[in-house]
């Protein structure tokens, strides 16, 4: 392949030389032949380098496009993941809303029950603490406070 390109380049160069105006013979035949060979080799090198750069650029472009395509694919996949995560979170939030609504319903029912049991307002009351020790118990007994609920009627 490489030799084919060289031959083609040389052919093109020779054809171009035939189209060029014939210079006056200022040198001998050997020098003229040498100049022709040097020019042909230079043109060949230029063409080869040009092809090389073109393909390198194509490869770079392809790599860039591949990278861009990969990034695009990744972004698309990430977007899909984000969407899925959002949908899951939306479901969780919906469940939490239902749970809160259910708890509020239960609270309302319990409040209604308490209100029905407490028409006079003091049947049930929180007795914040009741001490274990009393006036008739030994002083050495440690006082322990326990949360109590008071049920009954009347005030003290």
């Amino acid at each position, binding site marked *: 392949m490489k030799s084919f390109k060289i031959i083609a380049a040389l052919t093109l160069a020779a054809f171009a030389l035939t189209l060029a105006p014939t210079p006056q013979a200022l040198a001998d035949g050997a020098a003229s032949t040498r100049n022709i060979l040097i020019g042909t080799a230079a043109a060949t090198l230029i063409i080869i380098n040009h092809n090389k750069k073109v393909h390198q650029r194509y490869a770079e472009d392809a790599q860039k496009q591949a990278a861009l395509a990969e990034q695009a694919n990744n972004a698309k996949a990430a977007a899909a993941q984000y969407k899925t995560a959002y949908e899951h979170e939306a479901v969780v939030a919906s469940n939490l809303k239902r749970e809160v609504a259910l708890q509020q319903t239960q609270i309302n029912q319990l409040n209604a029950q308490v209100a029905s049991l407490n028409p006079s307002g003091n049947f049930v009351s929180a007795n914040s603490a009741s001490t274990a020790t009393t006036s008739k118990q030994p002083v050495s007994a*440690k006082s322990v406070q326990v949360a109590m609920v008071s049920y009954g009627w009347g005030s003290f």
Partner: protein
Amino acid sequence: MNLRAALVCATAALLIAGCSGQRVADETKIADDVTRAVYNNDYAGTVKNFDDTLKGQVTRGQVGVISDKLHALGDYQGLTEVKSEPDYRRYTFEAKLTNGTAMVRMRVHADGSIAAYRVDVPAATGLPTPASAASAKPK
């Protein structure tokens, strides 16, 4: 003369002590009767010694609620007075049940009718009662 004075003083002291013991016994018996009636979900027995104002506040459902709370603490075994404020006719008792205790508070009128009656139970099942918490020793 001295002997006679001593006898009078001794008799008076015995009378005072007897009256005092009778008072405690009466209040304890009244509180015990009411508490047993409440424990047995007996509405008529509960309000039997209540004054008219208090009778108007009591419902059968409320008696049932307290009965349930007491049953959650086990079998009722009686109560003992733990605090008294005679000036205000307020008394506090500790009701013993097989699985815990409850505090019973009562205020009475001069004629013996009950002006206020309350039962204090632990806020939640499983919480230590005042007596059990006090008797529990740290390990």
